[in-house]
């Protein structure tokens, strides 16, 4: 069949294009995995370290970033590096929230969060049309990790998957609000969710952060380690509160302010940061 006469005959309808020996998509994906292998050996969530390594990394780099790191290290004691696999945002949230809940066990705040991240998240996911018979397995992993204060369990892919589902569910529930943010780049919220939220290994952005803060009922503070210059090299912090605040029944003064999950953002990546003990 010639290109000039495409409708002629059909015996060669699918005859191999010139590049018949091209690798299959599976081969391409497995090659990609091989390239990324060094990163895939990295710990999902690393140990708590000081900012020294990061400061060394930027020692000859952008002075604005370096200034921010120095400013950060005066009030924060260190960070946990997360694996750069596109799931770092969800993994960091799961890990840190699990830690915070374990340290505040039995407080009104912890009780309210556990209610929100458990049965209430399941309800939101169900309302959004997810098959809870299948997705419930992932929710179980997350709730078990929280109940047992099991940070190892909180790092699991199944937890990342569940947090992606509840993020998607909150986006759907508040579609009027979120469509305004995504319709520039995606024709529908559904398509955005299908390509930017539900699939594993796809990074999170502003809508995801608002949605997951809402789903879990926690405030997320994100330090933006970018090269913009700020007064005295201060870090830009973005504080994202849940759209619907947590229903904390009674407040005990000794608990102090509600804990927040704090992350350090560099383009395409989130690590967990820890404040110095007061």
């Amino acid at each position, binding site marked *: 069949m010639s290109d000039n006469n495409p*409708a002629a005959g059909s015996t060669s*309808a*699918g*005859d191999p294009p010139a590049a018949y020996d091209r690798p299959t998509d*599976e081969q391409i*994906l497995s090659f990609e995995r091989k390239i990324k292998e060094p990163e895939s050996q990295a710990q999902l969530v690393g140990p708590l370290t000081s900012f020294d390594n990061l400061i060394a990394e930027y020692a000859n780099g952008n002075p604005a970033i370096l200034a921010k790191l120095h400013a950060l290290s005066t009030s924060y004691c260190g960070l946990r590096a997360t694996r750069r696999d596109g799931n770092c945002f969800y993994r960091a949230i799961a890990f840190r929230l699990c830690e915070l809940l374990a340290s505040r066990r039995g407080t009104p705040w912890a009780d309210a969060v556990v209610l929100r991240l458990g049965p209430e998240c399941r309800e939101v996911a169900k309302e959004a049309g997810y098959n809870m018979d299948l997705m419930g*397995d992932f929710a179980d992993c997350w709730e078990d990790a929280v109940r047992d204060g099991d940070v190892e369990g909180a790092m699991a892919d199944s937890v990342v998957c569940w947090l992606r589902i509840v993020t998607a569910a909150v986006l759907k529930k508040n579609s009027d609000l979120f469509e305004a943010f995504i319709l520039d780049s995606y024709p529908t919220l559904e398509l955005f969710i299908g390509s930017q939220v539900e*699939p*594993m290994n796809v990074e999170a952005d502003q809508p995801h952060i608002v949605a997951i803060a809402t789903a879990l009922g926690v405030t997320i503070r994100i330090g933006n380690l970018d090269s913009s210059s700020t007064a005295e090299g201060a870090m830009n912090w973005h504080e994202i509160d849940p759209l619907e605040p947590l229903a904390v029944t009674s407040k005990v003064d000794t608990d102090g302010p509600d804990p927040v999950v704090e992350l350090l953002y560099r383009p395409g990546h989130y690590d967990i940061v820890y404040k110095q003990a007061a």
Partner: protein
Amino acid sequence: MDAVSRRLLKELRDYRRERTAAALTVASLGPVSDSDLMLWQAAILGSQGTAYEGGRFDLDIAVPPSYPMQPPTIRFVGRVCHPNVHFKTGEICLDLLKTAWSPAWTLQSACFAIGALLTSPEPDSPLNCDAANLLRCGDTRGYDSLVRMCTLVHAVPSTSEVVEAERKARRT
């Protein structure tokens, strides 16, 4: 029972119990044998009113051990004329089977999506350039007739049998 088997059995039960709208497209779905849950087969039906109408297209499904974190590998068994299906290997170019896969998908919903792909081709990422070129130059009439003939020859059970019988008769 391991998590993958448990999940697959749930999916199988859901498919058998629900027979929802998807079942109009996914005519059959299940493991090839009782002894191996990781190999499935499915058949999807060409939608009415399209050039695939009357066709029954078999799919081979290989489930990886990391399922559902990783997508299943799904191929057409027989010949399918479609811009995003390799004519010889049956390989399918569909983002949800690659980068857009999510554990929220199931084998059934993936097969349903493949059924939907049949009638919404993406000629700009072709595995079958001949089919794609017809669409790209706007020759939908030529495209439809090519697809219809290919469906009749390879995917309509009665026709395929007749064609096969004739071929044998000619040979003898």
